[in-house]
Structure formats: structure tokens, C-alpha cells
């Protein structure tokens, strides 16, 4: 019994992150003191064994009467700012132009804050926690003896890879730059596209240890307040120790974790994020990752490519139809083939039946085994190909796809028709613009194969029904996932103009359902006759 109690006690302790200096959310509880030495002592304690912490205590004033302390993390700062705007001002300039010390003695803090720092971006904090957090995020702290306040000078300047060309979501026409790992740079990329004060950037931090910066971007008078509130509630509904990538946030705030389909869209394209924000959606930008989340997302968003709006509407409408067919193929072709050949060969025209039968003549396996075997072989190739560096990856493709496929057919392990089926499925799955949606269809393909192999065409239908039922019950921030193909009455059928067909730009005068109801108009012509 006592053991059990101990276990529970341990368990309770394990669930909490507090120690003598930190509270349950890993925030530092030590107060700031007026005495500089006490503060330094506390900081030394907190930064014990942190080799990257740079600190210096030095006196200022002609007679060196006031002690000042600065601290920062090495290489996370811009050394130039610290040296030119901070240290030079404090150490050299202040000494060379002596103010009457007795005059300013009582207001030395204000004197330094207002006159001693040659940089615009400073702020004051009053807790040690905020000060330490500022240091850890690349700012420099300045503590003056006699004051329980800390001046934080923005000196962020760590190395990053800058704005580079995209490697996924590639377009032929349109901007080529992509998001990078720095949060501020990403917000800039969006801000450059929307020069409106109503574009809000709300910042918060998630992660009790990682303290990751997260920015929510939206246009204040277009975004739907209910969705914004919902999003904020969801973001505040959990505590996690760290957020390494935006997918952490995605998985924690999505509606249905069982679903193989993504309910939140991730993009690397600033133009895409900007246009989503202009449609009333909300972008969640997470520091340290180039993937920006867009909520709410419906299946339609996953079928749109950024390029859809840059090219002519005719060709885009055509490719949209191709994409939908591709999605259906990616999920359904193997199952349909099994259902037809195993259960209803009479549905296939006779010459083709003969051809299929002839090609399967010496194959020892039933069709299901054949198809699943080839599908798994293909998944294997795909997995091997992604992990390998570029040149070897393409070799794998050739060896796997051509040589093994050819050999398997010649050795009568699989029939050539199955190779065609698997190849069509694979190519179709690559024609879906969004990778996370592709993954969904890849998974449900096996469900349909299972149903079809047991119940033929009826089973195929049941498989499709299962997926449809799942899809219709999905929601993204209370908007039906299959919108606008279902419940399109919600916004007067206007959203159908950007679904299977993309209407010419001048016809899409209204924003989609993500926007507030009184802010739907996005295009109007000055000359009424043009309409």
C-alpha cells in the first residue's frame, strides 16, 4: 500500500515541471532585486554550466560610480549593434561628455535608457523570467545597479540560410521565393505582399522549454471572429515542452486525429499564405520551420496549386479535373481492378478479358496478392528514394522501376497488367498537388483493396462509401471538409466558382466562406458596364 502511495507521489511529481527556481510552467520564479550583485548571482546560478552565455559587469561614469551588467548568448546576437550602439555609448561616450553626476544621480536609469543607447528597439522588463527569455532568444540585457528593472536591447542576429528558392510546391509561373526558418523573415515575406495595417501579427510563445515564437497572421476585418477565437482557444488548450516544427501544432489542434487526411494545410509559399490570408484564413507561423500552417482548410484548398491563379483559366480548369480524377485513381484503381477481374470478368470487354487471362496464365498468385505485392514494392522504392541523396535516388528509381518490374514480369511473378495498374496508381498519386493529401489517398487505397478482394464491386462500393462517410464527417474549424462540394448553400454557391472549374478571375468577385459575411466582395469594376 505504501509503495502504491509512493508510486502515485512520484507520478504526481513527474507530471510537474517545477523545482525551486521554476514554477509548473517552467517559468523562473526568482524576483529581480535592486542590488546588482544579487541579480548577477541569480543569473550565474541559472546560467551555471552554460558555456555560451557571455556576460560582463563594468562601471560607467567619469568616476566609475555606477555598475552595469550586460549579458547575451554568443553568436545569437549581432555583435555590431552591441559594440557600436551599446558598449561604445556606455563606456566611451558617457565618459567623454560628463554630465553633472549629482544632477542625474537619482535618475541614472532613465538617463541611460533615454540617452545612453543608440538603438530604437529597446524595452523594459520587470521579471527575471522575461529577462532570461530575452537573452535566450538573442537579445542583450542591461542591468543597472539600484534598479529592479532590466533593459532589453533587441540584438537578434543569428546565422540562417536566408530566402531561397523552393524545392516543393514548385511553379512554372509565379514567385519563386520560399519561407525560411526565421519567424521574422517569414512575417516580412507576407507583410511585403499585404501593405495594410489591418494585417495583424499576433505573437505568442508555445513550449515550456523551447519557448518557440508563434505568430498568427490575419486581416482584422476579413477574418471570421468565431474561427479566430476557436483557434486561440485551441492554441491555449495545451502545454507542451517543445515545438520543433509546425506539425506539432497541427497535430495538437486538428479536429480528428484518426483521419488519414490532413485538416490543416501547410505551405512553404509566401504568395500562397498571403492569398489565403486575403481570403480570410489565418496563417500560423512557427519559428524554426519554413512550413506555415493555414486554417481552416477544406479539401478544395489541397487540390489548388498556387499557380492556379497565375495561369489562364481554361488550362487550369482542365488540370483541376485531371487532379480530381487522379485522386480517384490513386485510391481506387487497384481495388477496382481486383473487383473486376476476380468477381465480374463479364464486365470487361471479351478481347480484354482474354488478354488479361492470357497474361495471368502462369502467374501463381491470386490477383490480390499480386497487386498488394507490387504496391508494397512500390512503397518500398518510394521510401528508399526519399532518404537517398539525389543522384542515387534516381538510380534507385531506374533499377527498381524498370529492371525489377521487367524481371518480375518475365519471371511470371506478376502479370504485366498489374504493373500497369500499379504504375497508373503511383503516377496519379503524384498528380495531387498537396503531399499530405496524397498520403491520405495512399493509405485508403489499401482499405479499398481489402474490401474489393472480399466482396467484389459491392465491396469496392463499400470501401468508397467508408471513405466518403469519413470525409463528410470531417471538419476543419467547423467548416465541412468537403466544402464547397457539400453544404455549398452556406455562402450562396459562390465558392463553386473555384472548385472543379476555376472561373475566369473577373467572375470570382466574392471571397470564399472563410471570410466574414459582410466582407465577401474582393473585386469590383469602376465601370459598371464592364460587369
Amino acid at each position, binding site marked *: 500500500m505504501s509503495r502504491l502511495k509512493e508510486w502515485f507521489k512520484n507520478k504526481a511529481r513527474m507530471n510537474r515541471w517545477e523545482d525551486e527556481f521554476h514554477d509548473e510552467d517552467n517559468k523562473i520564479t526568482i524576483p529581480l532585486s535592486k542590488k546588482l550583485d544579487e541579480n548577477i548571482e541569480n543569473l550565474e546560478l541559472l546560467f551555471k554550466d552554460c558555456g555560451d552565455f557571455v556576460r560582463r559587469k563594468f562601471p560607467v561614469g567619469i568616476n566609475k560610480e555606477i555598475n552595469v551588467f550586460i549579458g547575451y548568448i554568443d553568436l545569437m546576437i549581432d555583435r555590431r549593434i552591441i559594440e557600436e550602439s551599446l558598449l561604445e555609448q556606455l563606456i566611451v561616450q558617457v565618459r567623454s561628455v560628463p554630465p553633472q553626476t549629482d544632477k542625474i544621480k537619482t535618475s541614472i536609469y532613465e538617463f541611460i535608457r533615454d540617452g545612453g543607447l543608440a538603438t530604437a528597439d529597446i524595452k523594459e522588463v520587470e521579471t527575471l523570467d522575461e529577462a532570461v527569455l530575452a537573452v535566450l532568444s538573442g537579445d542583450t540585457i542591461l542591468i543597472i545597479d539600484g534598479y529592479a528593472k532590466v533593459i532589453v536591447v533587441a540584438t537578434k542576429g543569428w546565422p540562417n540560410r536566408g530566402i531561397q528558392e523552393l524545392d516543393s510546391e514548385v511553379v512554372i509561373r509565379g514567385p519563386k521565393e520560399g519561407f525560411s526558418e526565421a519567424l521574422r523573415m517569414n512575417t516580412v515575406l507576407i507583410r511585403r505582399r499585404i501593405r495594410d495595417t489591418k494585417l495583424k501579427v499576433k505573437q505568442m510563445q508555445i513550449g515550456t522549454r523551447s519557448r518557440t515564437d508563434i505568430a498568427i497572421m490575419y486581416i482584422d476585418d476579413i477574418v471570421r471572429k468565431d474561427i479566430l477565437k476557436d483557434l486561440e482557444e485551441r492554441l491555449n488548450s495545451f502545454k507542451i515542452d517543445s515545438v520543433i516544427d509546425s506539425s506539432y501544432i497541427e497535430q495538437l489542434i486538428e479536429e480528428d486525429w484518426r483521419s488519414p487526411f490532413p485538416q490543416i494545410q501547410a505551405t512553404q509559399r509566401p504568395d500562397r499564405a498571403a492569398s489565403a490570408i486575403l481570403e480570410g484564413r489565418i496563417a500560423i507561423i512557427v519559428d524554426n520551420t519554413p512550413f506555415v500552417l493555414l486554417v481552416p482548410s477544406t479539401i478544395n484548398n489541397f487540390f489548388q496549386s498556387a499557380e492556379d491563379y497565375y495561369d489562364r483559366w481554361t488550362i487550369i480548369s482542365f488540370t483541376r479535373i485531371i487532379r480530381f480524377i487522379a485522386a480517384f485513381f490513386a485510391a481506387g484503381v487497384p481495388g477496382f481492378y481486383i473487383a473486376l477481374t476476380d468477381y465480374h470478368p463479364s464486365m470487361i470487354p471479351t478481347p480484354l478479358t482474354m488478354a488479361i487471362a492470357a497474361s495471368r496464365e502462369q502467374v501463381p498468385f491470386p490477383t490480390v496478392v499480386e497487386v498488394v505485392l507490387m504496391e508494397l514494392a512500390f512503397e518500398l522504392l518510394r521510401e528508399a528514394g526519399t532518404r537517398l541523396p539525389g543522384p542515387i535516388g534516381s538510380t534507385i528509381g531506374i533499377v527498381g522501376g524498370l529492371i525489377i518490374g521487367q524481371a518480375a514480369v518475365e519471371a511470371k511473378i506478376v502479370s504485366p497488367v498489374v504493373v500497369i495498374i500499379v504504375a497508373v496508381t503511383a503516377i496519379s498519386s503524384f498528380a495531387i498537388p498537396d503531399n499530405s493529401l496524397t498520403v491520405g489517398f495512399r493509405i485508403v487505397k489499401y482499405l479499398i483493396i481489402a474490401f474489393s478482394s472480399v466482396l467484389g464491386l459491392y465491396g469496392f462500393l463499400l470501401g468508397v462509401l467508408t471513405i466518403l462517410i469519413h470525409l463528410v464527417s470531417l471538419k476543419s474549424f*467547423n467548416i465541412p471538409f468537403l466544402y464547397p462540394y457539400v453544404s455549398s448553400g452556406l455562402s450562396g454557391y459562390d465558392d463553386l466558382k473555384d472548385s472543379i472549374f476555376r472561373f475566369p478571375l473577373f467572375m470570382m468577385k466574392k471571397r470564399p466562406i472563410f471570410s466574414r459575411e459582410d466582407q465577401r466582395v474582393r473585386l469590383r469594376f469602376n465601370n459598371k458596364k464592364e460587369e
Partner: protein
Amino acid sequence: MFTKNDKISIRQVEVLLILDLYSKAILFLPRNAAEIANQDGWICLIGATILALFYGYIITRLVKRFPNDTFVEFSSKILSKPVGIFLSILLIIKLTVTVSFELRTFGEVVKQVLLPKTPIEIIISSMLLMACYLVRKGFEARARLGEILFFIVLIPIIAVYILLLPNVDFENIQPILTTPLPKILKGSYNLSLDYVSIELILLVGPLLNNHKKLGRASFNAILFVGILNVISAVIALGVFGVIGTKTQVWPVMVLMGLVEIPGAFIERQEILIMTFWILSVFSFISASIYFISLIITRITKSADQNFLVLPLVPFIYIISLLPNNIVQTSDWILFMRDYFRFLFLFPIPLILLLVARLRKLGEPIEK
């Protein structure tokens, strides 16, 4: 975890109603019509549609008086609680038996056309479980699925009708109006009972977000399905002739097989059309199960509907396997039709409406 809103729009009601009405009778209706009135069967169908519109009118008037109640509550309010609960239980039994026999017929059709070697138990139980899966997702999901199925089911079928038009020999349906009027009226009444899904409107009240247009929606849906049924009867009679239509078990299914789509890849397309029919039957079965569980929830005043769904499965499954064969099934369906279907279509709603008016219950309909 997050908020859920279970209301559906009036357009979704319309779509669901069309699917449920359509699937109920489409395979047999031309044969039944021909049996009653030979080449004038399609006139009976017109009469049946008019009668169905009338039933729909009474029922929607009743539902609009009690926008936040299902049948269970407003029948209790109007005719005292014991009577209301008795009627609700009667409705449960009726719906259960109807859905069971519908399921059995469905199983037989699928077995005969698609899966001759598969035991019927597997076909029936898989369909039942699939319907339960949908029911557990809530009525809103059902409405959205209906919107998708609507296009998948009806576009191919209308296309087939258009393609069949050249085959229709209008001499087969002449001479018109040789059947005596009483026989046509009797036939209209009999056929109107196939529009039994109208009674589901009795239960749909609290699920709607706007009641004002309910009458219009049910009118549109019944008219739409009525026209489709008349067209399919005309085509069946025109293609097969009277005797041909009478001898076909499923005339519409055979019709589908006659279509020659130019350059079509797939042969025996009636199997393909069959799959579309399966989808609409699925819609009807899931609707029935949903409403059975809804009535039970309302009677017992329990908060959660989902846990009631799976216990229904064995009942429906066993009842559906009671008849020995397809002939017995259709005999029992006929028996049900003659004695039970009419009750909730017309007399009970009418009595309820009249009593409600006399007792001035519910919201009067604003002009």
C-alpha cells in the same frame, strides 16, 4: 472535443428526401404499375404522385406547427402522453420491419446480380454496419453525404433515361385511358404507398435550421421523384410492352442493361447502374436506422444517441433473415404495405393536425 452543430439546411432535406423516396420503389414501381393498370400504369403513377403531394402537405403542416419537436413529443402533447408513446413505439416497429425487409430485398438483388456465391448474411450485415457507421457520425454528415450521392446516383440514371428514349415504342402505351376510373384511383392509392419515406419528415423537425421552406422542399422532392417514376414507367412500358414489363422482376435493372453507350469500355453496364442503386438504398437504410435510434432517444430522453445504434443491428439483422426467400419477402412487404404504411402517411398526421388545431397547440403558421 470541439463544438458540433447538428442542424441541416433545407436544401439538404430536399436532397435526402429525393434519395430516400427514389430508392424505395424505383426497381419495382413500373412492374407494380403495369400489373395494376396495364398500359395506363403511368397514369396511376401520376395519381400516386398527386396523393403523395397531399400526404406531404399534411405532414409538413403538422411539423411546422411544432418546429422543435419530433413525432414523439408532439404526438404526446396533442393526444396525451400514453397515446403518444404508443404511437411512437408503433412507428419504431414499423420502421424496423420496413428497413429489415428493404435490407433483405437489397441483399437478394445484390446476391443475384453481383455476388452469386456470397452468402446473403454477409451482404446484409456489411450493409448494416456501414449504415451504422454513418448514423454514428450524426445527421449532419448524412445530409452532406446525401448531397454527394445525389449527383453520383441521379446523373447516370437520368443519362440512361435519355439514352433509352430512342428505344421507346409509344404504341406500347396506347390506347390511353382504357382502364376504368375506379381502378385507376385504387391503383393510384396503392402506388402512393410507395412514397412511404415521406413519413420521415415527421421526425426531421428539430434537425432543421429553417422551417419556413419545409413545405416547398417536400413538394419539390416529391414532384421530382414523381416525375422520374412516371418517366421510368413510360420507358419500361414503351420498351418492353405491358406483358414484358409484368414478367420482369426488376424491369428498371433490365432497362439499364439495354443501353448501348457508344464506345463504352465496360460491358454489362447494368452492374454499374446497380452500384448507383446500392448507394441510394444505403441512404434509405441509414435514414431508417437513424430515425429509429432518434425515436428511442426521444422516448427515453437519453442524452446520447450513438450508443443506441449498435444494439439495433441484431434486431434488424434477424428480422431481415426471417422470410425464407425473395417471394416470401415481397409477400410480407405487400402485407406491411396494405396494413401499416398508410397509417403514418395520412390518418395519424391528419388526426394530429386536426386535434392540434382544435386545441390550439403549437405555433400557428404565419402568413
